[in-house]
């Protein structure tokens, strides 16, 4: 109590004596929600790098809810005309902010040009980082998460004579076999974002890369309500049958734990699930499998990035430039992603210190980028704006948690998207 009071008093004293303490490298106030163990460690690397460039880091962590709380804080700061230097924003939301007129005049574009970011990033990723009609850099990427992973318990599969499935039919057969042996085939948490995560992996596998692009990225009405979409919902219904009764509302890491302790066999989840396995001391390829869900060399990505808002004052602009350059630094990209479980957004970072799953992810990424299979995840806010993403998620979760027919679901999907446009 007294300590808090003391802090309050000190806080007031500082607030009323705002002598500019900016150093040569400028200052940066960074709004983020990386506050838990591995993520906080990963962010420390960035703080150190930034300090080496002579910058002053003003931390503004808003913990909780995968960024929900942070988003509320961020919006109120922007409405008040005082945005932070940089904040953790990704996907088309970057361009949405740009359209509200708070990102111009794109101070970091000069840095990006000087360091030639275009050649360091794959074109899909770099496009997400650009504002002003995809011409000027206004955000810097930190990592690439893959979404379409199967996490599976190797011992469970081995003891039933099963291999990792390479098609959805194989998966269904394996799951039925496991179910009759009394094992939960599919560990899942029934939360809307998890339902959507599974849905997009299924859609990518059953519809194929082109269909995914048409339905999810282009929002083509015929694709959304057509026969292929019906098949996708059919597979979702089968997956629902492979879950257990405790599924609704379960957190994703609880589902991961079910795979780890052999109660369940498979889970579909992004590569942050790997952290749960490594914390329990399990090894990929020995204790568990980390392989992509069946698809035609598709790759669903989720790129975390920092957006840089329009700023006034030399010290703040210098801070933005130095921070952008630090984020794209090889050292930060490597160490951060080893901690976080993802892979670097920069293509030229050596991968030999990463684990097997990350190495596989990095080589798949390069292959998929060439063959057109590198696609944005909609469930994690990379493909669609929030309104369309939310509308789609509503239908998916309604279908998965009820006995709605696949035809009905496909029809509603198209209707909901139409209404949200």
């Amino acid at each position, binding site marked *: 109590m007294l300590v808090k009071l003391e802090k309050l008093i000190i806080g007031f004293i500082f607030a009323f004596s705002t002598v500019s303490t900016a150093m040569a490298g400028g200052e940066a106030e960074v709004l983020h929600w990386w506050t838990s163990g591995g993520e906080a460690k990963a962010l420390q690397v960035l703080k150190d790098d930034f300090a080496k460039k002579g910058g002053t880091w003003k931390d503004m962590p808003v913990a909780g809810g995968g960024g929900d709380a942070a988003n*509320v804080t961020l*919006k109120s700061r922007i*409405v008040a005309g005082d945005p932070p230097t940089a904040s953790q924003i990704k996907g088309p939301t970057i361009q949405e*902010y740009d359209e509200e007129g708070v990102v111009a005049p794109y101070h970091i574009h000069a840095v990006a040009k000087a360091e030639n970011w275009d050649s360091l990033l794959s074109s899909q990723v770099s496009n997400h980082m650009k504002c002003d009609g995809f011409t000027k850099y206004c955000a810097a990427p930190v990592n690439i998460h893959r979404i379409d992973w199967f996490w599976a318990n190797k011992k469970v599969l081995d003891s039933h004579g099963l291999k990792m499935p390479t098609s959805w039919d194989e998966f269904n057969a394996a799951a039925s076999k496991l179910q009759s042996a009394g094992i939960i085939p599919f560990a899942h948490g029934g939360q809307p974002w998890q339902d959507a995560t599974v849905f997009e992996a299924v859609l990518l596998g059953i519809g194929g890369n082109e269909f995914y692009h048409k339905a999810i990225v282009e929002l083509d009405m015929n694709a959304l309500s057509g026969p292929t979409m019906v098949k996708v919902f059919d597979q979702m219904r089968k997956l629902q049958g492979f879950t257990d009764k*405790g599924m*609704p509302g379960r957190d994703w890491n609880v589902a991961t734990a079910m795979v780890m302790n052999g109660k369940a066999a498979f889970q579909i989840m992004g590569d942050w699930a790997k952290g749960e396995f490594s914390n329990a001391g399990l090894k990929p390829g020995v204790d568990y499998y980390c392989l992509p869900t069946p698809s035609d060399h598709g790759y669903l990505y989720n790129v975390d990035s920092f957006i840089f808002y329009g700023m006034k004052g030399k010290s703040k602009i210098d801070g933005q430039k130095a921070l952008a350059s630090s984020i794209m630094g090889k050292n930060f990209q490597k160490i951060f992603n080893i901690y976080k479980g993802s892979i670097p957004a920069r293509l030229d970072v050596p991968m030999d210190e990463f684990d097997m799953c990350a190495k596989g992810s990095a080589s798949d990424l390069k292959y998929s980028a060439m063959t057109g299979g590198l696609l944005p995840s909609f469930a994690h806010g990379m493909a669609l704006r*929030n309104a369309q993403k*939310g509308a789609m998620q509503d239908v998916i979760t309604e279908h998965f948690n009820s006995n709605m027919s696949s035809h009905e679901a496909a029809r509603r999907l198209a209707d909901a998207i139409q*209404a949200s446009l």
Partner: protein
Amino acid sequence: MLYWLQRNLPKIVISPSFAVIIWFVYGFVLWTFYVSFTKSKMLPRYEFWGIDQHFRLWSNPRWFNAVENLLIFTILFVLVCLLIGIILSILLDQKIRTEGFLRTIYLYPMALSFIVTGTAWKWILNPTMGLEKLLNDWGFTEFTFDWLVNRDMSIYTIVIAAVWQSSGFVMALFLAGLRSIDDEIVKAAKIDGASLYSIYLTIILPMMRPVFMSSIVILLHISIKSYDLVVALTAGGPGISSDMPAVFMTQMAFHRSEIGLASASAVMMFLTVLAIIVPYLYSELRRQDANS
């Protein structure tokens, strides 16, 4: 000067908080009204757009679902809370020995926040680790209680948790009301040969009209605002089956970049509160004026 100060001190002291309330409550109510007539998406915009957001709101199936849930929840929550609260208070009013102890037990849930209540009930009602599993492990293998994960029943689990938390509070209100009733009236009725049942039903409860009023107003506003309990207990799930207007509003405002639509839904909630509470307060206050 001193005299002037003395006379105006109350006004001076109260005026800052008065100004703050005018601005932050009524000011922002008006602001929300205005925003609901704009095209605001991610951030508020101020060009007038017309009534389209309200049309969009009322053509959104999710909103209808939320409103329907609110109706079910409000009706059940208010009625069941009143019923349990009244019964408990009448039972406690029989001059029993451990009254203080029992009263504390029933009142304690009120000390918890809805988040705690929601989380605890989430565990109790979860079929794979709560009540159902316990009874199954005890040998009642036929027993199922899966309302929490059943989309047709999930809204009732919210009613259960909310009733558990709030009926003790209603009990306390009614107990205070019962204590204020003159013993002579009860004695007179007894002499006239009225049964205990009819004394309560036809004499005592009608006398407790003001207590009914305060309980109903308090319960109603809890139910229309209900957000934290839903988020903690079901998060609106399974699917969107236990969605409520307040959850819908935050979702739209902060997750979906639909600030205009969210404002329209907030306006609807506000009007609902007005439509229910204003006539009620009006009639009750007028009655009191007439009595005094």
